[in-house]
């Protein structure tokens, strides 16, 4: 597809979406969408010449002609099988649309709102205007612009001042198999007012056979003064899925936010995490785990902005890559002039399980203040043969020993997760995924042995 044909296809989608979009009569929202679409047309999809996209080629997305995902009905059991045990509430979106019959939004404590964004745009747009689209930057990122142009469906979470929600709130995004490549643009807004406390899990899942599907998600998370917020992103779509997710965090004074990303599925995944520590004394934990196999491409782009003094940020990302998987960790830290006494730390650890697996890890520090502490470090290694032998020498099978060691490595990240429900959910998924990775790589090894045998014989 030529660049012009690409734009025409997106324009067609845009025109169609605009006709039925919620809040199409609201001038501010109409302008937000139109400006964003204009911005997207101007910028186009990034290329590897762009420094921020050096390691990730999105031409597979640019080339594909997507149509908006169609509505689909799913049985209750489909959603139930994917739910997070012990959640406070769950909002389910199927092919990007709120499915009230699958969601459970009762039993929420007073002061907590969980709603479909589209419904809220119709019902109470004034509430949204203050925050929606104010943080995620379309200037920097064509994917954010594209998402904003199609802004309609997603989730809205509001936690009133001082309210504490113990169990996590789950946003479950399900996509179904279709006969043509489809796109959704999930858009979430999470507002945690001063001194509130909440955990939110965004979980992306495909259902049914593998058809090309593109989730282009943006979440804006606003943490008020002294608010404690945990955000979890779980990507477990099938291997034909494209997933570009942007989490933009705006932190107030002494706010404490944790972003946890767990990338298991998806063929081409870009995970943008962009916290701005805008108030004094804020703390941000940016924690992640990515497990890739086959030809998966998992890119983590961190952009941690220190804009106020006395803030701390800690980044920890662990990657496990097998097959021909390609992982990326790009850790950008920007310390503004005003952000004295910043304490920023970054660690990226990787295990490569095959010769063809690849990791690109890149720290990028831009420091404009003079009294700051910034450290970064990255390691790339293999499973330690010593440790493997030690476990085997006690009777544990090689395959089990490998999984134990990989699980231990993954659990470094899991242990930083505060919510028990989220932790248990994630551990279950990681266990399953390690089994999947093993099953994918096992036949390859068998083939290899055969080949060696042939050469010998």
């Amino acid at each position, binding site marked *: 597809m030529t660049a012009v044909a690409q734009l025409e296809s997106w324009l067609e989608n845009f025109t169609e979406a605009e006709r039925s979009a919620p809040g199409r009569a609201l001038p501010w929202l109409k302008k937000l969408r139109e400006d964003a679409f204009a911005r997207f047309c101007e910028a186009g999809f990034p290329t590897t010449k762009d420094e921020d996209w050096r390691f990730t080629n999105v031409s597979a997305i640019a080339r594909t002609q997507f149509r908006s995902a169609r509505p689909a009905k799913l049985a209750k059991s489909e959603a139930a099988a994917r739910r997070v045990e012990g959640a406070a509430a769950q909002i389910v979106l199927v092919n990007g649309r709120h499915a009230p019959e699958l969601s459970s939004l009762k039993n929420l404590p007073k002061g907590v709102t969980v709603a479909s964004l589209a419904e809220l745009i119709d019902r109470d747009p004034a509430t949204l205007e203050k925050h929606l689209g104010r943080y995620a930057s379309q200037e920097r990122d064509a994917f954010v612009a594209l998402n904003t142009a199609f802004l309609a469906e997603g989730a809205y979470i509001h936690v009133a001042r001082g309210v504490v929600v113990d169990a996590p709130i789950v946003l479950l995004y399900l996509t179904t198999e279709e006969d043509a490549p489809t796109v959704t643009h999930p858009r979430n807004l999470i507002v945690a007012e001063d001194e509130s406390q909440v955990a939110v899990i965004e979980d992306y899942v495909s259902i049914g056979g593998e058809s090309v599907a593109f989730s282009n998600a943006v979440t804006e998370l606003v943490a008020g003064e002294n608010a404690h917020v945990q955000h979890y992103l779980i990507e477990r779509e099938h291997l034909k899925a494209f997933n570009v997710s942007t989490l933009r965090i705006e932190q107030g004074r002494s706010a404490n936010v944790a972003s946890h990303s767990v990338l298991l599925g998806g063929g081409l995944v870009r995970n943008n995490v962009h916290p701005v520590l805008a108030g004094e004394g804020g703390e941000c934990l940016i924690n992640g785990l990515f497990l890739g196999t086959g030809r998966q491409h998992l890119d983590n782009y961190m952009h941690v902005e220190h804009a106020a003094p006395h803030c701390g940020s800690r980044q920890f990302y662990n990657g496990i890559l097998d097959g021909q998987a390609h992982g990326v960790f790009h850790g950008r830290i920007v310390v503004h002039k005003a952000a004295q006494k910043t304490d920023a730390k970054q660690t990226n650890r990787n295990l490569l399980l095959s010769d063809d697996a690849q990791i690109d890890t890149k720290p990028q520090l831009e420091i404009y203040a003079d009294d700051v502490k910034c450290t970064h470090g990255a390691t790339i290694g293999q499973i*330690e*043969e*010593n*440790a493997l*032998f*030690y*476990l*085997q*020498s*006690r*009777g*544990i*099978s*090689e395959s*089990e*020993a490998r999984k*134990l*060691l990989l*699980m*231990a*490595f993954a*659990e*470094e990240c899991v242990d930083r997760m505060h919510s028990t429900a989220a932790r248990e959910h994630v551990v279950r998924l990681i266990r399953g995924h390690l089994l999947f990775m093993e099953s994918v790589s096992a036949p390859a090894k068998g083939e290899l042995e055969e080949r060696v045998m042939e050469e010998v014989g």
Partner: protein
Amino acid sequence: MSLLEIKNLHVKVDGNEILKGIDLTVNAGEVHSIMGPNGSGKSTLAQVLARRDAYNVTEGSVTLDGKDLLAMKPEEAACEGVFLAFQYPVEIPGIGNTYFLRSALNAQRKHRGLDEMDAMDFLPMFREKLALLEMDDKLMNRSLNEGFSGGEKKRNEILQMAVLEPKLAILDETDSGLDIDALRIVANGVNSLRSPERAMVVVTHYQRLLDYIVPDFVHVLVDGRIVRSGGKELALELEEKGYGWTEKELAGARG
């Protein structure tokens, strides 16, 4: 049939021949001690028996209860009753001691057609063994050997052995670095496992250990060969004269 029969074992590591024709027979119920200078190949022999695959066997055979040990993977050897107490136990962050040990025991039980042990059955037995080795059970909540002192690591090896109850225990310098109290505890643990069905191969540099774990046979390994074998008095002789004379003897035998 002997429990362990090593015949003309040659082993190469990274292209260098380290073991140059070892013959050794160990019967159930016996304790053999292997002594020898640094770098003579003691640990290499121990690791080959535990089936570490970095060691390349170029010649010879090893059987355990008549089965070809060299055809086994490390976990198979373990399930068949081989246990190696490592000279340098490995620290493995993120895997709990107790969980690991129960998994190992259950893997072995499964291999032998026994039911898995659940935590309820495992714990009382485990506590007994902890008491035997005078180990603080708080250590067991930590990751495998992580942050353990040298002595604690060695005791943990013997604790694992006590839980796994192997047929053939190979102790590679389990006494090195232990003070006399720890040595007594470890030796006590080892002796409690001595039985007519079980054999032990004890690698050490020091006669001191052999005061506590009295061997039936002592072998001297020099430059990849067993140059002398004898009873427990041989250890005393070695302590007195060093290995110099065995090497001279070896040179004499060669020349």
